[in-house]
């Protein structure tokens, strides 16, 4: 082998080897050309090609629909959550209104009381109004504020004296003139 490693191939030897190679290839080619070939059937699938493709397409479409449904559901859920978040303050506002309702009612009642009181004073001054005592009783029943009570107490005292406090100077003047 070592001898062969150092051997220089002459052009003649090279030509001869290539000539043998050509003859070998030609002989092989002729032998293969004359050989009876068995035509191989392509591997047949259980399903025809069009059916396989249609099945694949159906599966792909089903997957796409499923993904879209999933995405749509998530989107709807998110939208509902956002709507709920947005409507929460609005829902809280009526609750706050109902919480403020007694105060408003009380204010309204106070206004009504003021109006009734003014009317009572007016009618009393005119001498044609309803019974002032009854009016003051209604006033007490309504549970008004301290100011109202004070006002009513003043009115009661004036009535008990027979002369309203507002008319006191005139009553005093009339009394003096009568003595004279």
């Amino acid at each position, binding site marked *: 082998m070592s001898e062969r490693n150092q051997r220089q191939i002459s052009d003649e030897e090279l030509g001869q080897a*290539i000539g043998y*190679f050509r003859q070998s290839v030609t*002989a092989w*080619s*002729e*032998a293969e050309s004359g050989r009876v070939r068995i035509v191989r059937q392509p591997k047949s699938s259980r399903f025809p090609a069009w059916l396989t493709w249609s099945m694949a397409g159906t599966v792909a479409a089903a997957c796409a629909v499923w993904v879209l449904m999933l995405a749509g559901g998530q989107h709807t859920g998110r939208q509902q959550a956002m709507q709920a978040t947005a409507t929460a303050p609005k829902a809280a506002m009526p609750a706050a209104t109902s919480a403020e309702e007694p105060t408003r009612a009380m204010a309204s009642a106070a206004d009504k009381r003021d109006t009734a009181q003014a009317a009572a004073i007016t009618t009393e001054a005119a001498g044609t109004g309803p019974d002032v005592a009854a009016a003051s009783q209604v006033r007490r029943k309504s549970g008004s504020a301290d100011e109202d009570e004070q006002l009513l107490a003043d009115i009661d005292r004036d009535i008990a004296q027979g002369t309203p406090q507002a008319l006191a100077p005139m009553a005093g003047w009339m009394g003096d003139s009568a003595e004279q």
Partner: protein
Amino acid sequence: MATNDAPEQAGFDAVAREYRPQIYRFLLSSLRDPEMAETLTQECLLKAHRNWAGFRGESQVLTWLLRIAINLQKDQWRNRRLQFWRQTTTHAVDVSEAGNWLASNASSPEQQVAAREQVKLVWRAVEKLSGRQRTVFLLRHVEEMEIAEIAETTGLSEGTVKAHLSRAMGRVRAELGGR
């Protein structure tokens, strides 16, 4: 239309009969796969038949046919690389088996053994060549084409063909010398 096609068809039949063995031999030596060589030979002739009307005879018929065969071979290799995930069964014959084929004109048994050994060594060298070097070497020494014809067939310049051929010969020489 049929009257014009008939001579063309007859002409192509004669061409196919004449050049089919050479196309098959080139593809067999290049691929070492008898089945694939047969398939590509059929494809080559089919492609040639389709384009036969467009063949103007500017080059030789064999040159034109071998150019088609070389392109098909390139496509086949490209497809095999791309379809590595498929069950691409190759029936390439081993170098030692391919070297067993020998013409029966060798005189003595000793000469036949020596010739067979040389053929195997050449096959081994050819196996190690690049695609272009192998094509050029086979066209030159199996199909016995001239440099200009090889250049026309492969689409390479004559200088490039000579360079590829020189490297291929160097490889064969080295293989025969046992290096």
